[in-house]
C-alpha cells in the first residue's frame, strides 16, 4: 500500500533555515519534492534569541519550500539542537508475570516507560528515548523481544533531553505561522537516519554534524545509539574568531572562511595570502592564508576534541568500524577530514544525505542532512496501517 504521504522537515538553524518537503512511501527511498533554504537571523548557537526575526526567516523558508514542491505545508517535523541537549543511558526493566511467560507488546511499552523514570535536569523534558537493546532474562542483543520466553524484560535506552523552554520557543516560533509541529526531533538523530547506513551503524560509527551554531554528534555501536549530544560551537564561532583575530567585519570574515578558509596550516593550501578588495566601509587588506587557517583549525580542533571527550566519557569510541562521518556546513572546510582524522585517530569521511531521491542539489548539500533526516525519521516512525507492527516497532525504537 504505497500511500503517498507528504512530510516536511524543518530545521531552524543558526546559519540557515531549511524546510524540506518529501514524499514518503514505506520501504522506498524518500523523494524530495522541494527545498526552501533561507539565511537565518535571530538564531545563535542553535537557539532562537530573536523570535520575530527567526519567525520571518522560517516563514520565508516554508514559503520557498511550498513554491518549490507545490504543497501546502501544515505540519512539520521540527529539528532541535543546542548546547542544552544532553543524553544519558537508562535502563528500564519490567517483570513478566509467570503465567504469561512471554513478552508482549505491552511489556515493551512498559519497559520504555520504566526507563523514563529518571531524573532529568531542571527544566528539561524528554525528546527521545532511543532504544539500544533489549535483554530478556539477561540475554543481550535482543532486537525484537516480542514473543520471547522469559521472566524479565529489560532495555537500554539512550534518553535524549533538552531544555523545555528552548524547545517550546522553537515550537512557538513555528506555530505562530500557522504550522503545527508534529514532533520535535534532535538534529543528530534525524541526520543519522540519512547519513549513516545500516552497515556503518552495525560496525560502529560516529556522525558529526558541524553546523553554523552547533556541532551535533551521534555515535552508534553495534547498530544502536551509544551516545549523542550537541556542542554549542559551530561555524559562527569560526567566523567570530576570524573576525576578532583579523579585525574584519563579520560579513567579510564569513566570506573569507567560506571562500578561502581551510584547516590546513602547512604546505600548499596554507601558502600565500588573500587580498580582500576594498569596498564601502572597508578599506581592503591582505590576509595570510596560514594565519587564517591557523585560527580556523584552532577552533575546529578544539571543537572536535570536545566532542571526542564527550564520546569517550560515554565509552562510545571503542568500536568504530565505520569510522567518523562529518556533515554539516563546516564539513566543507578544506582539510577538515584530515584534522578530524588526527583528532579521532580513525578514518574520517565527509558525507551528506543518502538513500533519497530527488534533485541532487537538494540532498548533496551537507547543510541539509538534518532537515532531510527529519523526513526519514518521520518515515521510520510513522505507524503504517498494513505494517502496523513494524511501524510500532520502529516507533518504539525511537521512543514515540
Amino acid at each position: 500500500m504505497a500511500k503517498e504521504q507528504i512530510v516536511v522537515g524543518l530545521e531552524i538553524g543558526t546559519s540557515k533555515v531549511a524546510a524540506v518537503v518529501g514524499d514518503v512511501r514505506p520501504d522506498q527511498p524518500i523523494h524530495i519534492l522541494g527545498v526552501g533554504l533561507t539565511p537565518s537571523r535571530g538564531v545563535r548557537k542553535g537557539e532562537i534569541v530573536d523570535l520575530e526575526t527567526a519567525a520571518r526567516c522560517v516563514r520565508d523558508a516554508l514559503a520557498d519550500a511550498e513554491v518549490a514542491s507545490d504543497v501546502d505545508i501544515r505540519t512539520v517535523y521540527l529539528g532541535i539542537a543546542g548546547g542544552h541537549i544532553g543524553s544519558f543511558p537508562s535502563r528500564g526493566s519490567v517483570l513478566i508475570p509467570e503465567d504469561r511467560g512471554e513478552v508482549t507488546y505491552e511489556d515493551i511499552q512498559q519497559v520504555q516507560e520504566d526507563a523514563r523514570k529518571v531524573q532529568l535536569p531542571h527544566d528539561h523534558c524528554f525528546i527521545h528515548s532511543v532504544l539500544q537493546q533489549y535483554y530478556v532474562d539477561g540475554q543481550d542483543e535482543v532486537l525484537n523481544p516480542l514473543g520471547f520466553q522469559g521472566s524479565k524484560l529489560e532495555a537500554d535506552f539512550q534518553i535524549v533531553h533538552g531544555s523545555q523552554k528552548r524547545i517550546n520557543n522553537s515550537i512557538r516560533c513555528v506555530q505562530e505561522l500557522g504550522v503545527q509541529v508534529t514532533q520535535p526531533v534532535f538534529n543528530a538523530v534525524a541526520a543519522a537516519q540519512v547519513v549513516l547506513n545500516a552497515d556503518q551503524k552495525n560496525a560502529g560509527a560516529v556522525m558529526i554534524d558541524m553546523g553554523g551554531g552547533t556541532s551535533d554528534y551521534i555515535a552508534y555501536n553495534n547498530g544502536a545509539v551509544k551516545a549523542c549530544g550537541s556542542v554549542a560551537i559551530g561555524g559562527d564561532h569560526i567566523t567570530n574568531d576570524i573576525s576578532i583575530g583579523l579585525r574584519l567585519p563579520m560579513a567579510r570574515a564569513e566570506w573569507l572562511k567560506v571562500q578561502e578558509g581551510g584547516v590546513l596550516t602547512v604546505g600548499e593550501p596554507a601558502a600565500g595570502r588573500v587580498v580582500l578588495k576594498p569596498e564601502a566601509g572597508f578599506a581592503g587588506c591582505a590576509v595570510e592564508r596560514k594565519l587564517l587557517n591557523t585560527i580556523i583549525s584552532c577552533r575546529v580542533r578544539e571543537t572536535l576534541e570536545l566532542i571526542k571527550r564527550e564520546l569517550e566519557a560515554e565509552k562510545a569510541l571503542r568500536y568504530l568500524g565505520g569510522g567518523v562521518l562529518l556533515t554539516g556546513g563546516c564539513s566543507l572546510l578544506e582539510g577538515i577530514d584530515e584534522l578530524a582524522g588526527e583528532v579521532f585517530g580513525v578514518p574520517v569521511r565527509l558525507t551528506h544525505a543518502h538513500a533519497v531521491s530527488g534533485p541532487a542539489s537538494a540532498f548533496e548539500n551537507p547543510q541539509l542532512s538534518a532537515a532531510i533526516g527529519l523526513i526519514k525519521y518521520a518515515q521510520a516512525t510513522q505507524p503504517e496501517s498494513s505494517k502496523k507492527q513494524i511501524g510500532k516497532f520502529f516507533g518504539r525504537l525511537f521512543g514515540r
Partner: protein
Amino acid sequence: MIELTRTHDVNSAWNVKVLGIGGAGSHAADRLTKDAVAGAEILVANTDFRALSACVTQERIVLGQRLTRGLGTGGDPDLGRSAAQESMGQVMARLQGASLVILLVGLGGGTGSGAAPCIAEAARQMGAHVAVFATLPFSFEGRRRSEQARDGLDALRRHANLVVCFENDRMAAVADPASGIEDAFESVDSLLAQAVRAVTTMTAQKNVMHSGLDEIAATVAEHRATALFGYGVAAGEERARAALARAFSNPLFESEGALASATRLWVFVSGGSDLRWSEVQLLMQELTERISSEVRVFFGAAVDPELAGSVSVTLLAGIPDSADAGARSAVRSSRVEAIAYSNTMEPFAISETAAAASLQQVSHDREHAAEPLGTHAEHEQHVEDPALEVPLNPSEHAPEPLASLGAEFREMDPFPLEEQVSAPQRSVPIPPYEAAKERRESAAQSVKRVEPTVEPVFPEPIADKTEINPSRTVAADKEADRREVAETHAEAESHTPPEVAPLSAVAKRAKDTVQEQMRFESPNRGGRFEKTDPTIVDGEDLDVPTFMRQHLPLE
C-alpha cells in the same frame, strides 16, 4: 575635505636642463632624447668632437676646443677640468635660467671625472639645484680608472645637491648576459634615463615638492652609501603588488640579503588618476613586511596621467657601504658633520623669516608624528617615478624641513625625518620659492588642524624578524621611540573601528589584549554571542575565540 589649490605661478620659473658630460654622459643623454622626456631640455658636452657630432642630441657644447683640439682628454681628469674651465662661459650661457641642472656623467675617464665637478660647481653658483647621475666604471677597467672615478665622485659630492651612483658592475646584472654589449650598455643608459625621468617628474611643474631633491638626497644617503634601485611597473589586477614584486626582482635591487642591510628606503609610487589609496596602502604594507624594522621608510606618490591604468613603483634603498670602516660611527659623525658643514657651505642668503617659519613647522610636525596617510587620500601626492640611488653625502645639505605642501606630505610620513629635529639648519632654498613656501606652509597648517587622529596605517614590520643589522644608530633608536609613541597612540584608540589594521599590528595587539582582557564570561565574548548563555566547559567560556584562550602566537 579641504581642497588645496596649488599655486602655479611660482612654478613658472622652474626649468630643468639635462647635460650629458663626456662619452658615457652623452650616450645617456641621447637615450633621454630618444625617449623624448618631457619637461627638460637636453644638452651634451664633450671634449671629443667626433663623439659629440655622433650624438642624437642637437644641443652640443664642445669643451676645451683649444686645449684638446676636439680630440678628447685621453682619460686624464686634469685635462678634463681644464677643458671645462676653458669653456665654462659657454656652458654657463647654455645653462642659464635653469632651476635644476641634471648632469649625466660616466666617471673614470677624463671628461666626466674632470669636467663634471667644475660644471656642477658653476651651476650651483649660478643658483640652480644640481643633480648628478654618475656611473662608476667596471672593476675590470683597472684601478686607475676606479680611483679617478672615486675622486671625481668626491668632487661632485662637494658641489651637487644630489649625486646618484650607478655601479657598472652591478648594472651588468641588468642586462641579459646573452645580449650583445651594445644592448647591455643601452640598458644601462635606459636605467639612467629612468632615474632622470624620476627627478624631472619629481620636480616638475605639477608637483609642489621641489625640496624633494634635497630631501631624498639627505635622507636616503648615508656617508658614502651605495643604494639599491628597483623599478617595476604593472597594470591590471593587483597591479600595485605586481609592480612592487617587479621592483623587488629588478636585478639592481639584488637579493633580499642586501636589502636586509638597508637602512633607509625610499618608495615612489605613481599611477594614473585611477590610482587608489587602498592599492598604495596594500603595497606599503607588503613592503614593510619585507624589510627590517629598523629601516626608515620614506614614501612619495604622485599621479602621472600618462600612467593611466598602470602603477609604477620605484624603490631606492640606502645601504651603508660595508667597505667603509666603522660605517655606523661614520654615519653618526657625518650627521654631526652635516650640521656644521652646511652652515659654512651655503653660498646663498637665507631669509630669516623663511628659516623661522620652517623651524616652527618642524616642531609642529613633530607633534603630529603619527598622522595617518589615510586622511589624505584625496590629495594628489608627489611621485618620484624611478627611485634614485642616492649615495648622498649629507654634508651637502640638511634637508629642507617641510616647508612646502610637501609638508602635508611629511605629516603623513609615519617615520618623519629625524633631521628635522636635529638639524634645524636650512638647506638652500632658491629665493623665488620662499614666498611660495610660506604660502604653502600656512595652507598646510590649516590642513593639519582638521585631521582626525586615526591609527597610523603603515604596519610595523614583524617584530620578531631580526635582520642582519644588529647595531642600531642613534637615528634608529629615536625612530623606534617615535614608533612606540605612535603605537601607544594607536592602542589608545583601538576602540575606534579600525578599518584596516595591518596584520602584524593586529596580532601584536591581539596578544596584548589577551593578556589584559582575558576574563571568563567577559563582555568581550564577541558581540555575536551576547544574547546567549555562555558555553562554559572546564571553566572556559568557549565563545571567546580559541586562539585567544590558547594564547596562540599569531604571526
